[in-house]
């Protein structure tokens, strides 16, 4: 993706000129303005931020948590990637979370977080994210800030127009960017056109538990479903997807899929399709996908393979699916807080196309069609279009909103954020970004109730913004104060991985309910020890299970003998602390996985396969206390044929 943009960027000489101007403008912001900007972002030591921001980590596979306006990073939440910091994806309990129909996939490309909503407003229960590469959707708890569930999406490839939630969190919606044969089969690539499909998946969310269930997939023509957003308010019940490659090219896509003057925004009435499915509509298709659920009671993830999915042919459901012609390979597809306007950002053009939901309904009613594609009616452009924003920029990508009737659109090629008015379509302000901005985020900017105080612009190119760190640099983000008529750049901070979209919410929505410890008396892990007196070592063939507990500042037991070369030693470690922010770590020499970081009340397991005779130390990796350095122990490993009995002790007892 980035490469394509580089090429585009390279072709457009004007861009370079523009960037040159920006570079000059950067260091010049000083004096009175800079001091007021400093005051705006300064969160004094001991003070806390106003907003949480969840920035996708892109190819890091994880989600990062920041504070606004300070730009301070609080946490990296492991989602799709193994994370040695905590042992996620390495511990026995979390390995199942990364299971897929392709086996263990320890990485993904995380793009779009979306916070759960009730009545179109952020409710702060969960944040949903997509894995783009091996199509997956994850649900992260906003009490524990941990990944609780990952569901794989069959029949999809390049899970990009995801994970967007409907306004009561009825569904998480996940669309495929790459059309593929459905079901997958061996066939010539050049027979793509007319044969490949684009699956749009509707994953229901249990209102109490948040549990995900792949309810149905709409098998659309083989276009590329790029981004999407839910209808809200009056357009609740609809979902809008931008598309490109309506040409259905299968090679040299940058040229061949840029030929049509207009691609489409697909409008899907999911409530109609849901009703159709509830009444027995759709076809059951045999498939195979993983559904992984983590329990905070057993502190363990379980992976289940699902074998069936309901697919829906959109032409079989009357009045459920329409195409809205939208110029120039639209990328962003954003819906304003009222639900009336659907903004398509033709990424190869200068202008934004705004469709009207009311006009769309009237056009459907009046059958104002301009042909069809694979049996799906194409609505007449002039009958659905509400306005064109003559932006003066180039390469519009994404739009967010404040609650005052303003929209803010990023322009990748001209590297700027443009503020414009809904309904008059007038541009009121523009500010440069540094450089080549992708998504932007206003807390609640994708809901009925935006908190329009700051906008965060997330850029693809860093260049000279920070001290150089060799060829590879973190991406940069900018914070603008948008409370006034003109936007004001107030801060610049590096991010982790490659942030695409982000989601933000007021701090008070989450801070008070954030969990401090896991209760030991609620620990249902089968290998937990809730009292140090239960600590023990058991042998089962060549498997050795160590039931170990930790408290400041010792392991129980800390001397273990009777382990032999060739054994598979499971260290099941329960942290007996019930005090906020007192984790213990565990590592042992020659561990082929990673350390563990065990939160108070939690149990985690690391497998160790000793290969050499000797006396091998283990220790706590988290500086837990004044006696942290002493938090250590030994395992004696004897030859495979020795007959030393298992024994264990602490303080000689």
């Amino acid at each position, binding site marked *: 993706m980035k490469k394509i943009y580089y090429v585009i960027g390279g072709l457009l000489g004007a861009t370079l000129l523009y960037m040159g101007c920006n570079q000059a403008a950067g260091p010049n912001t000083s004096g009175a303005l800079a001091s007021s900007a400093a005051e705006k972002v300064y969160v004094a030591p001991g003070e806390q931020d106003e907003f949480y921001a969840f920035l996708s980590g892109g190819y890091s596979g994880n989600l990062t948590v920041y504070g606004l306006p300070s730009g301070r990073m609080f946490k990296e939440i492991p989602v799709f990637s193994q994370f040695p910091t905590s042992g996620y994806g390495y511990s026995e309990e979390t390995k199942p979370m990364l299971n897929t129909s392709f086996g263990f996939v320890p990485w993904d490309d995380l793009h779009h977080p979306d916070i759960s909503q009730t009545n179109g407003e952020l409710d702060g229960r969960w944040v949903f994210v997509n894995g783009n590469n091996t199509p997956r959707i994850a649900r992260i708890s906003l009490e524990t800030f941990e990944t609780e569930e990952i569901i794989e999406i069959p029949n999809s490839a390049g899970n990009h127009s995801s994970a967007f939630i409907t306004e009561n969190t009825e569904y998480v919606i996940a669309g495929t960017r790459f059309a593929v044969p459905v079901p997958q089969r061996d066939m010539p690539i050049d027979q793509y056109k007319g044969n490949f499909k684009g699956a749009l998946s509707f994953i229901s969310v249990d209102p109490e538990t948040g549990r995900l269930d792949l309810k149905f997939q709409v098998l659309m023509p083989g276009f590329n479903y790029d981004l999407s957003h839910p209808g809200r308010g009056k357009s609740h019940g609809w979902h809008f997807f931008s598309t490109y490659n309506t040409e259905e090219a299968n090679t040299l896509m940058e040229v061949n899929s840029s030929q049509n003057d207009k691609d489409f925004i697909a409008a899907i009435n999911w409530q109609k399709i849901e009703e159709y499915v509830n009444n027995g509509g759709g076809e059951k298709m045999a498939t195979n996908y993983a559904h992984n659920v983590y329990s905070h009671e057993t502190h363990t993830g379980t992976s289940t393979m699902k074998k069936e999915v309901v697919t829906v042919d959109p032409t079989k459901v009357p009045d459920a699916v329409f195409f809205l012609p939208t110029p120039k390979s639209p990328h962003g597809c954003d819906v304003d807080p009222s639900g009336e306007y659907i903004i398509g950002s033709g990424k190869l053009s200068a202008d934004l196309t705004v469709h009207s939901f009311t006009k769309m309904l009237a056009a459907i009613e009046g059958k104002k069609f301009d042909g069809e594609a694979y049996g799906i009616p194409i609505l007449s452009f002039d009958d659905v279009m509400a306005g064109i924003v003559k932006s003066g920029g180039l390469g519009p990508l994404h739009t967010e909103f404040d609650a005052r009737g303003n929209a803010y659109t990023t322009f990748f090629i001209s590297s700027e954020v443009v503020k414009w008015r809904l309904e008059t379509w007038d541009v009121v302000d523009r500010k440069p970004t540094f450089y080549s901005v992708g998504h932007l985020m206003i807390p609640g900017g994708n809901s009925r109730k935006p908190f329009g105080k700051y906008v965060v612009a997330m850029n693809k190119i860093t260049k000279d913004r920070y001290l150089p760190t060799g060829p590879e640099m973190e991406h940069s983000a900018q914070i603008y104060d948008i409370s006034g008529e003109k936007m004001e750049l107030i801060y610049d901070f590096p991010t982790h991985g490659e942030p695409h979209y982000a989601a933000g919410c007021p701090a008070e929505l989450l801070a008070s309910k954030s969990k401090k410890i896991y209760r030991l008396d609620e620990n249902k892990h089968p290998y937990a020890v809730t009292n140090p007196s239960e600590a023990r070592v058991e042998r089962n063939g060549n498997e050795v299970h160590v039931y170990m507990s930790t*408290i400041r500042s010792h392991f129980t037991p800390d001397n273990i003998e009777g382990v032999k070369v060739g054994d598979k030693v499971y260290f099941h470690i329960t942290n007996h602390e019930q005090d906020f922010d007192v984790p213990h770590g565990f590592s042992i020499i020659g561990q082929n996985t990673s350390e563990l970081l065990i939160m108070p009340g939690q149990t985690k397991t690391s497998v160790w396969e000793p290969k050499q005779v000797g006396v091998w130390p283990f220790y706590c990796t988290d500086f837990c206390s004044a*006696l942290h350095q002493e938090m250590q122990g030994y395992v004696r490993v004897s030859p495979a044929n020795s007959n030393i009995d298992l024994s264990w002790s602490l303080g000689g007892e």
Partner: protein
Amino acid sequence: MMIGSALLLGLFVFPLWNIELGAPQYPEPLGLNIHIDGLQGQSEFDIQNIDGLNHYIGMKTLPKPEDMWEFTVFPIVIGGMAAIGILIGLLGFVDKLGPSWFFGWFVVMTILGILGMYDFNAWMVDYGTNLDPNAIMKLQNPDGTPMSYKPPLLGHKKMLNFDAYSYPRLGAYLMFIGMCLTLFAGYIGGKTSTKRTKSLTKNMATT
């Protein structure tokens, strides 16, 4: 008198005393509520966490109700005194007992209170100075004597990284108000009975 002594019963519900331990890394201080029948953490896991910290300096773990006779005897004494006080008040109300009984109850209660405080202080001295000789950290005062970790009986004391605060809580305040009420009742009772005696004498004189 009855209300006053009944207020003692508040001690069965509310803590008598509280010791709070704050430190830089404990922005939310750890706390100990002392009830007449045992100790409770100010937050659910505070006792476990105080014990966890105290093991570094060799302090004994905080006593459970069965570890100290006080937690059995105090409720009996308080319950008993409340019952006796109510009885005295009732009999006083129907003029069977004079206000001297009220004052007597107050004096006994005050002595018991002082004994209780003395005992509480003695326990803290033992707890704060009777340390495990194999303690992880053995700290000394500048004069070379072993450092004491006895919390203050009342007020604030700095102990290593901790600020200890020791103050009475609602149960103690109720007891204090109750005792004042009994004193007040004795005073009022004394006045009215003197008046009554006077008028009685007057009547007798006129007849």
